[in-house]
């Protein structure tokens, strides 16, 4: 039986610093995040509260999963110049290489994750205004939610799916590859031009995805060079005997909620079908790296993809097939472990989007990023009678992803909304209730001065006495509102909390 799925995303944002001669993206990213942390009234990161940093300690698999270990030698490995904060909504907000990056808290279904992913974007928007208030006149920080600078440099929007350690990795590779190649027809954020090696930029006036140009391998550990379609990083941030985390690096960052929701929801369903060995070998793609770029460049959605054994199928027909199999799977196994009720909504959108892609993709303006962007660019070009290589078209592409509400082209389109503004506003300040992120977020809200550092699978408390106390959280399904809300509410001090948990465990 498939595991209860845990979902998460990590988004690297593009950043530029205007009004300075030699801008440095690392210090710009630090400034951006620090401005948010200083400005916000959020508990745990407010101006009068100590910042709560990220704990880099490498958890040893299999030990310390119960009770507390006095910690005397915590390595304070936080690099002093690189911000790395934990927010009270359970997110991690930090500088990664030369970008601001936000990792959502662990969510139990794709709808919740959509909500916290959107909250992440709002946090970046708030960060920009905080930073720009603090910058001297004439300077400005601007953040973009995209994945490419158009010059061969890419940055990621990674997805995470917790899966069973028992599932054979080969099975995951085969079926996930088929899905990743073909789901581009609804996950693509659209891009003007090519950045593939050996291809001239304007040989490809427009393609479905930002990322397809950057993938050169089928399977591997890399994320920055020779990127693989299936990434093998094995860092479950949970009990490694039970779990594996599939770290998906091949997707685009989306602005359209439907694109994000379907990207997460369909992939979660696929993982369940893989765990329950529900799929056969009919849809194995013969040359995945080639097919990834082929699909991204095929605006007709009709290009035949070569399958192993010699047959061909279009990306659209493969997605229809995966949709049908998911429907059968849900009828047989139920939706409990793949995200419950929100998966019904995934199926609903999946069917509607595939139908519209089959009949007339332009109907999906406001539903899918690539369709929305393509329509803006095509009609702008027609109106002004521009050549395909006009810089204005590349500028439109970039500006679609500009997160400044007044400058973003995306925000000027009336798009399909799946989560409400109120739900997103709550998710900026509060953790999801159904995973351990709840414990992390609530402790930060209630005892910010006592949380020394935190990470995905533990929190270190400074109780004021001699010992620091580490609370391990190796099980993502524990520490939920149902488990600990009453306890946290009933404890006045963090010492009370720790003693109560300790008693529960003993």
């Amino acid at each position, binding site marked *: 039986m498939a595991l209860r799925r845990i979902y998460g995303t990590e988004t*690297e944002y*593009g*950043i*530029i610093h205007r009004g300075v001669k030699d801008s440095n*993206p690392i210090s710009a990213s630090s400034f951006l995040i620090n401005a948010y942390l200083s400005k916000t009234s959020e508990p745990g990161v407010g101006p009068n509260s100590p910042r709560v940093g990220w704990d880099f300690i490498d958890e040893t698999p299999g030990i310390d999963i119960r009770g507390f270990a006095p910690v005397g030698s915590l390595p304070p490995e936080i690099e002093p110049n690189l911000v790395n904060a934990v927010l009270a909504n359970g997110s991690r907000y930090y500088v*990664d*290489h*030369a*970008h601001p990056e936000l990792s959502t808290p662990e969510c139990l*279904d794709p*709808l*919740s994750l959509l909500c916290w992913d959107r909250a992440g974007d709002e946090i970046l928007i708030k960060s920009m205004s905080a930073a720009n208030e603090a910058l001297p006149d004439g300077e400005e920080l601007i953040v973009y939610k995209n994945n490419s*600078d*158009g*010059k061969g*440099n*890419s*940055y*990621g929007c*990674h997805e995470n799916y917790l899966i069973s350690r028992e599932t054979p990795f080969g099975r995951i590779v085969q079926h996930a590859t088929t899905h990743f190649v073909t789901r581009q027809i609804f996950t693509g954020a659209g891009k003007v031009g090519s950045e593939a090696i050996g291809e001239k930029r304007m040989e490809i006036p427009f393609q479905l995805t930002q990322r397809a140009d950057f993938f050169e391998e089928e399977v591997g550990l890399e994320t*920055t060079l020779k990127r693989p379609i299936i990434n093998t990083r094995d860092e479950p941030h949970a009990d490694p005997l039970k779990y594996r985390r599939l770290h998906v*690096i091949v997707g685009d960052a989306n602005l359209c909620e439907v694109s994000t929701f379907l990207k997460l929801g369909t992939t979660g369903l696929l993982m369940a079908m893989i765990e329950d060995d529900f799929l056969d070998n009919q849809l194995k793609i013969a040359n995945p790296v080639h097919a990834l770029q082929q699909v991204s460049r095929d605006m007709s959605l009709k290009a035949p993809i070569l399958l192993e054994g010699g047959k061909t199928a279009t990306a659209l027909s493969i997605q229809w097939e995966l949709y049908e199999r998911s*429907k059968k799977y*849900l*009828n047989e196994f*139920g*939706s409990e472990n793949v995200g*419950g*009720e*929100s998966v*019904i*909504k995934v*199926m*609903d959108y999946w069917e*509607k989007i595939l139908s*519209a892609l089959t009949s*007339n993709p*332009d*109907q*999906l*303006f406001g*539903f899918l990023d690539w369709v929305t962007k393509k*329509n*803006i660019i095509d*009609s*702008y070009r027609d109106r002004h009678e521009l050549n395909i290589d006009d*810089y*204005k078209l*590349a*500028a*439109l592409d*970039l*500006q679609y992803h500009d997160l400044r509400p*007044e400058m973003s082209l995306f925000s*000027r*389109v*009336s798009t*399909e909304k799946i*989560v*409400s503004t109120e739900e997103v506003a709550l998710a900026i300040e509060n953790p999801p209730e159904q995973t351990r992120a709840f414990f992390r977020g609530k402790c930060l809200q209630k005892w910010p001065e006592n949380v020394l550092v935190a990470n995905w699978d533990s929190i270190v408390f400074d109780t004021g006495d001699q010992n620091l106390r580490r609370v391990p959280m190796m099980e993502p399904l524990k520490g939920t509102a149902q488990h600990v809300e009453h306890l946290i509410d009933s404890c006045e001090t963090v010492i009370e909390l720790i003693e109560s948990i300790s008693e529960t465990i003993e």
Partner: protein
Amino acid sequence: MAESEHKKRKTSEIDKSEIEATEPTPARSEELSSELDELLDEIDEVLEENAEEFVKNYVQKGGE
């Protein structure tokens, strides 16, 4: 997460009557050109002044 409205549904079957996604209809497609027209009018006001310089200066190294 709007749980109240979801709890009504059974988890093991897909009930078409409760589907909430907006249907992308051909009618919507006809509205598209007028929506795009309005959008294009606005775009010229907000589009980065020097498109070439903007595009050339947008460089993002050190990802992932």
